[in-house]
């Protein structure tokens, strides 16, 4: 008995694989910028943001059959991105490599500092960059939940009621996280003299 796969069958197998891949890419590629932007908000650096998007896409590939059944893709993606962020932050906290990475990053200019600035006044430009840099540094001192809620609420403009549904986190918990995050952020920035009364 011959068990070898004839050329036609082989071609069908490849075709099936290609079509699955293309569906997966077709559905997710339009959301890539969105995923990167939110990831960047969470982490404040390109490297970790790209890693988070990559981890998410690897995970989604194994669930590619479910993708076409998702009704509203963007809210669904935001929810799993948030979960992946929490998960990755936990892993990073356990890893001794995280500390080394953080120290190395601190010595390098942040992407914000390397961005071209359209502000005409030089003094204002320098001041803006300093403020951005200090805020980013202060955000890095918040815990993962506080960072996530401040990123989504204060930066991306989601309301707490929207986040309650999107992240499946109780409203009270979100309120308390946001309150603590803002208080801590203000406290850090006041100490630095960035935003002091």
């Amino acid at each position, binding site marked *: 008995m011959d068990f070898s796969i004839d050329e036609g069958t082989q071609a069908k197998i490849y075709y099936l694989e290609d079509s699955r891949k293309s569906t997966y890419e077709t559905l997710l590629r339009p959301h*890539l910028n969105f995923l990167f932007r939110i990831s960047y908000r969470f982490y404040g650096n390109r490297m970790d943001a790209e890693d988070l*998007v990559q981890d998410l896409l690897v995970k989604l590939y194994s669930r590619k059959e479910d993708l076409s059944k998702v009704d509203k893709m963007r809210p669904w993606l935001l929810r799993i991105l948030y979960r992946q962020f929490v998960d990755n932050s936990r892993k990073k906290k356990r890893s001794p*490599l995280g500390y080394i990475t953080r120290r190395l990053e601190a010595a390098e200019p942040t992407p914000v500092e390397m961005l071209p600035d359209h502000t005409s006044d030089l003094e204002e430009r320098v001041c803006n960059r300093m*403020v951005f840099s200090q805020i980013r540094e202060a955000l890095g001192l918040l815990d993962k939940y506080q960072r996530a809620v401040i990123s989504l609420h204060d930066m991306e403009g989601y309301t707490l009621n929207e986040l309650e549904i999107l992240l499946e986190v109780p409203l009270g918990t979100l309120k308390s996280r946001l309150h603590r995050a803002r208080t801590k952020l203000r406290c850090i920035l006041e100490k630095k003299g960035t935003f002091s009364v």
Partner: protein
Amino acid sequence: MDCMIIKEKMDDFMDGQLEAACAAAICEHIQKCATCRKRHAIAIRLRETLKALPVPPIDKVFGDRVFRYAVERNKPYRQVLPYLMRIAAAVLFVFAFGYLFQKTPWGVGSGMEAITVSMELRREIRLLFNSEETLANVTFSLELPKGVELEGFGEQRKIVWEGAIEKGSNLLVLPVTAHSLEGGPIIAVLRHGERSKQFTVNVKVTNPVYNDKSANRPHRYEMSIIPT
């Protein structure tokens, strides 16, 4: 209204979460009190700055790279790694490769390490690859000495597969069993493009009757490979 209460309620006030009467009272206080007015102005500025925090554009090649990587990572042979990790119930031997690819010198070359295993007893060799960056299309090859078998591969002496290495730690657990006293070198080679790195572990096999305590002692070796 007291300034401390205003400070406490400032966020709720700005979020529009307060009842109309309370919000009006705060509004009135802010107009009269210079400190609270300043605090309010700072809070507005902080919120505006947070919203204005720039996000750099996505890397042009990132999209292609990440989709290719996701497909690569989900190929069946990649799933051998977690399977092998799961069956590693007991840590018997640990090897650590440090950073994967050294800038110089390139090509084959590395130290030789030795381990002792007891014949017919399953042992696990752990290879820990640390990489500074994600590397796709890495070719792994493993050469086993005669009489040493990798679980699930029978008498196959050379095993080659392709995969990707993630940034950070990558663990590969190899459950091996020695069926003869001959022993010999286990050679692990990693290839990425034109570059390759070889690591050799010399396996010494002892008779199972002889209770060699060193055979059960964990080992940890390091080697550095840094991508250019």
